[in-house]
């Protein structure tokens, strides 16, 4: 297991005063992201490293990402979407055997 770089998703917060938190939705291309896609409640954060989300996919690929705001009744806003995001979660294999040549 190598060291995987962070993938920080940030967004401009909803201007509504009754926002209680945000949800992030993710779907692998070619499927469109929707309210039925895999989602994560990220609380009041407007910036998050998605590689640290529990059960987050670790498959490299192209993804559609959506963000919604919700209120205290769990009403959700329409979705802000970023399409065709290339995510790389897997570190390359480690280099092979190391040798030292004495000159």
């Amino acid at each position, binding site marked *: 297991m190598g060291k995987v770089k962070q993938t920080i998703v940030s*967004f401009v*917060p909803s201007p509504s005063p009754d926002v209680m938190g945000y949800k992030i939705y993710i779907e692998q291309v070619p499927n469109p992201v929707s309210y039925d896609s895999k989602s994560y409640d990220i609380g009041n954060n407007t910036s998050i490293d998605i590689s640290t989300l529990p059960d987050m996919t670790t498959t490299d690929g192209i993804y559609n990402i959506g963000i919604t705001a919700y209120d205290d009744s769990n009403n959700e*806003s329409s979705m802000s979407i970023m399409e065709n995001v290339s995510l790389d979660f897997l570190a390359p294999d480690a280099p092979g055997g190391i040798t030292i040549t004495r000159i």
Partner: protein
Amino acid sequence: MKKLVLIVFFVFVSNVHSANLREFDIYEYWIPTGEFLTVEWQAVENAKYYQFKIIHEETGRVIKFDNSIALTKTFTMPKTGHYVCYVRACESETNCSDWAISVDPTFATVKDAKRAWRCYAYIASPGIITIK
């Protein structure tokens, strides 16, 4: 005591460019929570001031109640749901007209036509997403 006879015609004046008008039995203006809205009404003879209130339909809660000598009121809707506006003319504390209600087409107008209307507040979506 003489009761004021109110014929208030009032109208939604949107200063929100994104307001959507949805035509059901009652016209609905769809506005994000927190946006400033303005309604206005016509003057009533002998009225000293006007009382204005807004009720959140889902909870029945009065979210704004003001006395005003002006013929307009600007307000925001604090949470999602439907909102109905009320206005009445007063000569004194004990002599006010009946309430004119925005869902009563006798008193309300939409685009200069007598139409019932109310507002629906929705939660605004987040803005631009960036990834790095």
